[in-house]
């Protein structure tokens, strides 16, 4: 039987049972909230993830990303609101939700004393992967993740990146509809992060997976079809990464010419753009500067000495929306901790 045929067989009954899966949203969260005591980790969050989408949750540590993912994966009960995953309610139909999702946690969840194959077999047995397809699937995924040669090594001999790849392979073993990745590349070096992303995007293409991930890396969020920016338990923006960045007015262009004032006048006359001049340098914002600049140069009457483009990053978006940057936020916490520790009363306690 071909892989396609197997996939077809697996997903058919699902589709009949649940009309919303025919191209509709596969994850729907409605006013989802979770409190821990008096702390409101997630407040009133609503969103929908379409089938086949790579959907990212971007936010600093402690923003509520893991709490949200845990509720969607049936590991935490929501305090309020509801959510459905693959058409099943996350509270009422936990077993069905669990069967239709694959999950890669932020912290390792492998049994390091077993080999890669043994970890995967355990998973296959636990999810009832049929014997016919089990070994073929294990081989296919380990080959894809470039771990086949090390399949019989104990996982404790693996590097951090290998472990994460093995976890991703395991999360996919039972042909889930949706793959949840909680900070999939946390603590990995840039090269390994890049590789993991290549596998993830490759998998999406091959298996038509929907991928839901959380991250606090800006560059990673760029890989998503849509991202929800989450801060202090609330979604502050939700859209395609380029739309979010363009919402800041597009790319910032700087042009140095022999006459700054004349250059700005020319540009505003022709394109109706506003900008600023400082000495001979003109600055203005324009969407898609890479297309705008060549067009401008072709007919620009003044001599251009230098041109520069800087793109707004998602960090700029985050900053504009929340008033603080994702990275500053962490620096702030360290600063707070330092101040806390260095207060006289605290010192006395420590010593």
């Amino acid at each position, binding site marked *: 039987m071909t892989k396609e045929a197997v996939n077809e067989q697996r997903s058919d009954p699902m589709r009949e049972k649940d009309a919303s899966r025919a191209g509709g949203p596969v994850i729907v969260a409605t006013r989802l909230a979770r409190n821990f005591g008096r702390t409101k980790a997630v407040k009133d969050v609503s969103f929908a993830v379409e089938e086949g989408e790579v959907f990212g949750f971007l936010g600093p540590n402690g923003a509520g990303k893991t709490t949200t993912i845990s509720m969607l*994966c*049936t*590991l*935490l*009960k929501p305090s309020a609101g509801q959510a459905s995953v693959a058409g099943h309610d996350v509270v009422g139909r936990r*077993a069905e939700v*669990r*069967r239709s999702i694959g*999950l890669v*946690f932020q*912290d*390792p*969840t*492998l*049994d*390091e*004393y*077993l080999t890669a194959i*043994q970890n995967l077999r*355990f*998973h296959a*047995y*636990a*999810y*009832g992967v049929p014997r016919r397809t089990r070994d073929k699937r294990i081989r296919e995924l380990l080959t894809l993740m470039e771990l086949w040669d090390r399949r019989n090594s104990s996982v404790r001999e693996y590097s951090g990146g290998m472990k994460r790849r093995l976890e991703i392979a*395991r999360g996919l073993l039972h042909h889930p509809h949706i793959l949840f990745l909680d900070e999939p590349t946390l603590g990995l070096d840039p090269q390994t992060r890049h590789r993991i992303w290549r596998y993830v995007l490759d998998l999406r293409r091959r298996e038509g997976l929907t991928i839901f991930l959380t991250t606090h890396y800006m560059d990673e969020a760029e890989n998503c079809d849509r991202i929800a920016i989450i801060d202090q338990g609330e979604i502050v923006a939700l859209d395609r990464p380029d739309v979010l960045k363009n919402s800041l007015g597009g790319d910032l262009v700087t042009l140095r010419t022999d006459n700054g004032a004349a250059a700005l006048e020319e540009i505003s006359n022709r394109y109706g753009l506003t900008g600023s001049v400082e000495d001979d340098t003109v600055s203005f914002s324009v969407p898609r500067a890479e297309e705008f600049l060549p067009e401008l140069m072709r007919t620009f009457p003044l001599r251009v000495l230098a041109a520069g483009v800087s793109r707004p990053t998602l960090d700029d978006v985050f900053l504009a929306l929340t008033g603080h940057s994702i990275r500053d936020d962490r620096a702030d916490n360290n600063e707070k901790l330092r101040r806390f520790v260095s207060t006289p009363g605290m010192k006395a306690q420590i010593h």
Partner: protein
Amino acid sequence: MSGTVRGIWVIAYRELLRFARERTRIASSLLMPIIFMIVFSEGLKRQIGALAAGVDFVKFMYPGIVAMSVSINAIFSGLSVVWDREIGFLKEVLVSPLNRSGVVLGKALGAAVIALFQSLVMLALAPFFGVPVTLEIVLKLIPIVFVLSLSLAGFGLLIGSRMRSQQSFQLLVQMVVFPLTFLAGVFFPVNNVPRWMEIVSKLNPLTYGVDAIRRIFLAGEVPRLPLGSSHPIIGVIVFGHTTTTLEDVALVGVLGAALLIGAIFSFNRQV
């Protein structure tokens, strides 16, 4: 139901896989009872004479050591839950479609199979200590060891399901295990000790497990044992009634079932 059955065998499979891959654990699970045997039997056999006709101290103590080591290992199987929680593997289990009763019973089954293996090795070594073993003893012992270890695994899992760190589990269990095993009639007959100790021992469920196993070993000597006396060395006298093997096992089994159900409930509460 089929989910529970799959849970049981998948979890038990992994417990056994883990056991097989850890040579130190295999060695320590076998060495501990052997060391106990050597130290106590060699150390005390000249000091303590026959407890009854044909039953010297070693013959009396050997079944007790078997019961004790099976019990200790079964209780410590609860540690695997804490361990799984610490390494994160418990999450992989909890988010899988396996149901919680299956997970708990699978852990207990794994522990029971390991205990069985351990007791069979001890039976193989028995002749070296001058303790005769027959096929009949082996066959009768298997179900008893099974019930005893399932029950005590239930106890270990109940504790393990509430513990966050291995250290606290070990501290708590050691605190419980030592009085439990030392007051279970492993080293002395519970019918012939000071009154307070007799009461404590007879309230200790492990006493009945030890007695059941001892009865199997000493079955051949039974006709010669002074069962009618007020201090028989086998059987536990409760309110003037001397328990039978079946009663011993039933008591352990009922208590074990309650402990396992408790462990399942405790597990279900963590989502």
